[in-house]
């Protein structure tokens, strides 16, 4: 495992007048694979948002690529987000764009010409098995297609870290295995992966494919859930 790319140091986060996370510390080394698990409402999504700067901690510190996230201005935050690919549970697509345009959105907003990236885009669509759906609009896609498209969008800028929030939450077993294989592939390419899931069967299925660590949120605290898989 390489140097830490994301570090959470004694992190606390209050929500709705109560303490959701308390004294949370983790380090995600470069090229590592982590699962984040815990019951619904435990704060998995919140913890992920704190990792990529969408939320500001109440206490403690988040460091990404050796930068204190709290000290970043809005432009620096935009650049940070290009280094962290995020797969949201609800995918967050723009419904007026085609699937291909949605996947290419990180390229578009970073000022790159899609025409120059056409080959890479097609390769990526092929990798997630969506070549024949590239002109479809998001509402026309199935749950599995949406998740794979969200993964493709998250990796199009070849970020160092990929964070996925319940990527298999709305798909069947077969599709969840397919998504897992894609995440493992990315990890083998050297990407740091952090996956929030409440699906323990997914974690068990990953056992034979990757060396992953399992973190569990319970009672506002983060714990290492047993030995490495």
């Amino acid at each position, binding site marked *: 495992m390489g140097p830490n790319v994301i570090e959470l140091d004694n992190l606390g986060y209050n929500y709705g007048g109560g303490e959701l996370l308390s004294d949370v510390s983790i380090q995600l080394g470069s090229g590592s694979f982590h699962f984040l698990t815990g019951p619904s409402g435990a704060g998995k999504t919140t913890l992920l948002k704190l990792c990529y700067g969408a939320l500001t901690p109440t206490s403690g510190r988040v460091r990404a690529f050796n930068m204190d996230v709290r000290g970043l201005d*809005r432009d620096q935050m935009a650049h940070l*987000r*290009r280094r962290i690919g995020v797969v949201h549970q609800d995918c*967050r*697509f*723009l419904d007026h*764009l085609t699937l291909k345009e949605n996947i290419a959105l990180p390229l*578009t*907003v970073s000022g790159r010409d899609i025409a120059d990236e056409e080959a890479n885009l097609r390769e990526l669509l092929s990798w997630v098995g969506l070549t024949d759906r590239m002109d479809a609009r998001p509402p026309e896609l199935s749950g599995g297609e949406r998740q794979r498209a969200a993964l493709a969008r998250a990796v199009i800028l070849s970020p160092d870290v990929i964070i996925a929030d319940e990527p298999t939450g709305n798909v069947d077993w077969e599709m969840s295995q397919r998504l897992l294989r894609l995440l493992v592939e990315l990890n083998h390419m050297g990407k740091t992966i952090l996956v929030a899931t409440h699906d323990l069967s997914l974690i068990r299925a990953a056992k034979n494919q990757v060396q992953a660590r399992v973190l569990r949120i319970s009672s506002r605290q983060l714990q290492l859930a047993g030995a490495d898989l």
Partner: protein
Amino acid sequence: MTFLKALLLGDAQADRVVPPTGFTAQLTLFVSGAMAFLCVFALALSMASGRVADRWADELARAATLRINAPAAQKAAQTEAALKILQQTPGVASARALTAEEQAALLSPWFGSGLPVDSLPIPQLIEVIEDEAGYDATGLRLRLQAEVPGAVLDDHARWRRPLVDAALALRRLSVVSILLIGGAMAAMITLAANAALSANAQVIEVLRLVGAQDSYIAQAFVRRFTLRALAGGGAGMALGMIGVLLMPAASDEGGFLTGLGFQGVGWLLPLLIPLLGGAVAFVATTRAANKKLGELA
């Protein structure tokens, strides 16, 4: 220049990331068009009233009228005496008695043509033109009073000043109207931009999540609203100019109510209206976008 090119040509990819918003698009187009239309008329009124004020000031400032009210038998003698006095008065460049035809022409708007001036007890009018230095009106009146009892000097100041003041006030009012139109347009476009930004809060969130800088997001909105204002302003200006073209041309009979259009290079001035509208929209949307993006951060 690069910025202007980027604004006008745009980026087809970037333009697509913000969904089209029918309501705000129509509102911006309509407001810009209506404001440009009104602005053309305010500008025309401003320029026409300016011209009228200048003309009245120039034409009347150096002219005066001497009226000889005398019995028919004495009229010629008093006229001659008055002309003699005027020729001797320092500051008077020229003085001449109006002919019977000229006096009849002055009365024809009221009495029609063919008026028998000779048979009517109409006073004789003398046109007095002063030179650069001007004459002493009080002194001239005193002398006329002593030597030509029926002479009354009217230097036009009594009615000229209020007319010039009214024309200048009308011009000021037109300029204020143009400023108010610009302000109202800025306010309406700010409201429309805010509505569009609020309606697209989720789009903005997604764009930020995939690494869009705020300047990129703001530009997408600013470009859209600026181009709409330019288009609406262009259409409004064209309609306004057609309206001005259809106004009656200037004529002596129509007086102030005609000739409200533009003259000469003045016809080029309305071309600035869409550009100014675009500039107003650009500033208003930039401010609204930066404020809203700050709130959404």
